[in-house]
């Protein structure tokens, strides 16, 4: 048994994982072309990319905007959702899903997540529907599509909108169809860490002509109520177009490496990858999410966070994921109360608590652009830490005292 790196031993991994974003000569040429065109907004690069994204996602409309958060906000405003309306969302997501709802003045209502997938649980979402509910925002956490069939059926039966927060899910597919084609609309993010990036940026896809027209009107100053300057600049569109060339190849690599890592983790008594529903034909893997078994860890006197520190010391950048959004102190502030004209229900939800505080752990997407040997190192680091559980627990107890 080798000494843990956290106690001064030799780490499993010495070589760093691939960085992000990956830059090529093609990107440089794209930037130069866009800049020299002199038209830095509403030009050819953006409109050509929109047409290409429509084709790629199989939707009638794609709109390039400034961020994934703004994409969600524009969808909500475009559907007329605002003050007095309720929008259901999962608590296990980035804060942007919540802030988009707050910025339009609607009331967020949290539904629990599925313990196996960490995506919104359709049964929990259904239990939260009231007369005031206008939409469910289903997040594709880590890039893996949520239960689209059940959520679509629920939304249709209740006469509410299903909005897909696909911020992390560019290229993901459900039943062979791009995730952007589901629901009333979908919102993607092109922020700096995302699998398709232009630094900041967002994409809206929809088959709803009226919604599309509303969004365009808001962006172009033709709307009677809102003028939102949020069109994506030509420089961003040019970089995205160039980066798009390599997206499909990277998706294949990420899926291949994730499958290999799944197999390497198979059978370990303390950790396992998230489940993927059988209808998920492509997982975009913005994150590789694994679940620690909190009972197994407790039996050894360990916690997820102690494990994460020890694994990180072995050279594997495994991090704790989201904390449940309802636990964030700001949702109880007077500022938020005034924004929505009331309180947000912050009752704890069992599966979100478990994922957020005790079990969830992530690897970032660029880790999956490494090779098989790197995946072996990830598994080796986890196993090494587990094999040293006794010493790790003893030292942690001592430190706590």
């Amino acid at each position, binding site marked *: 048994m080798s000494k843990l790196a956290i106690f001064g031993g030799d780490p499993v991994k010495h070589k760093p994982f691939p*960085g*992000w*974003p990956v*830059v090529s000569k093609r*990107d*440089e040429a794209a*930037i*130069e072309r866009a*800049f*020299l065109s002199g038209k*830095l*907004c509403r030009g050819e690069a953006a409109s050509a990319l929109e047409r290409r994204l429509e084709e790629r996602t199989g939707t009638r409309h794609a709109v390039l905007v*400034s*961020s*994934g*958060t*703004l994409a969600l*906000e524009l969808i909500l405003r475009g559907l007329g959702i*605002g*003050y007095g309306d309720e929008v259901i969302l999962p608590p296990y997501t*980035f*804060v*942007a899903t919540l*802030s*988009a709802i*707050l*910025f339009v*003045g609607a009331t967020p209502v949290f539904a629990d997540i599925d313990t196996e997938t960490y995506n919104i649980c359709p049964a929990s979402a259904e239990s939260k529907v009231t007369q005031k509910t206008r939409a469910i925002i289903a997040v594709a956490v880590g890039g893996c599509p949520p239960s689209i069939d059940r959520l679509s059926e629920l939304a249709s039966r209740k006469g509410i909108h299903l909005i897909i927060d696909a911020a992390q899910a560019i290229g993901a597919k459900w039943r062979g169809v791009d995730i952007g084609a589901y629901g009333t609309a979908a919102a993607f993010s092109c*922020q*700096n860490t995302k699998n398709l*990036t*232009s*630094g*900041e*940026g967002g994409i809206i896809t929809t088959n709803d002509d009226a919604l599309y027209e509303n969004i365009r009107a808001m962006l172009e*100053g033709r*709307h009677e*109520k*809102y*003028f*939102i*300057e*949020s*069109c994506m*600049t030509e*420089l*961003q569109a040019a*970089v995205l177009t160039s980066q798009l060339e390599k997206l499909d190849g990277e998706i294949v690599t990420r899926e291949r490496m994730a499958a290999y890592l799944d197999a390497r983790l198979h059978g370990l008594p303390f950790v396992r990858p998230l489940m993927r529903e059988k209808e998920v034909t492509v997982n975009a893997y913005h994150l590789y999410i694994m679940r620690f078994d909190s009972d197994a860890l407790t039996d050894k006197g360990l916690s997820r966070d102690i494990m994460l520190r020890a694994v990180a010391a072995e050279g594997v950048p495994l991090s704790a994921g*989201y*904390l449940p959004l309802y636990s*964030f*102190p*700001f949702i109880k*502030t007077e*500022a*938020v109360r*005034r*924004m*929505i*004209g009331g309180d947000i229900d912050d009752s704890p939800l069992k599966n979100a608590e478990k994922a957020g505080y005790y079990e969830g752990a992530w690897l970032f997407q660029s880790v999956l652009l490494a090779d098989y040997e790197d995946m072996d190192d990830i598994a080796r680091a986890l196993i090494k830490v587990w094999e040293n559980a006794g010493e790790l627990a003893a030292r942690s107890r001592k430190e706590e005292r």
Partner: protein
Amino acid sequence: MSLELLKEVLHSGIWGTIGPYSQKAAEALASHMGAKHCLMLYSGSMALEIALCALGVCQGDVVLVPASAEKIVRLSPNLAGAKPIECGGEKTGPTDIKAALVAEPLIKCVVLDANVVSGLEETSRLLSSRGVPLIIWAGGQVFSGAGRTLTKFCDFAVYTFSEGSDIYAGCGGALLTDEPRLFHIAYALHNCGRTLGEEASVFVDKAVGGNLRITEWQAAIIYSGLKNQSKE
């Protein structure tokens, strides 16, 4: 100069999320305008929205705007859930504001357009004495017109870098203020609730905020424009 900076941005791999050029552009603009704080945003309309939210404007509030202001100014209160009330004619001056304050005593905030305002100093004194915050939209007048030193008269001065502006970055906005408290609130509001120094965290639990950040592409162009002007 801009193209070289854009290539530098490309190869740095930092294309957004408040990189070095966002900070350099903010510092250069604050210095050029004689303001204490500057926040760069994705667009002028977003700068207006953040200014209103930072001043606590929200659902049900009434905001005064000039009738002859640009549409972006006249509609801006809607973004914060507030109701815009128009006043003034071709130009809006202290008499118009005074009359509006009598007609609508619950006015939460005033947004003026620097291009259609008269008697700014007097208006500023009037609003200050009534405790009503003031936002001034300077449009694209970074080097020309009434753009400079506006923060002396208001809580926030707002600039745009869209087509027709003194510096054209495709899109872009800036929020200037002399009030550190307002700057910190606006910063969190535009950066997903992160306070200064929390840029890398995914746990954003202290303040509410959306993503209205400027890109490094836009910021590099604006920084280059400001530097070129200062050389001239």
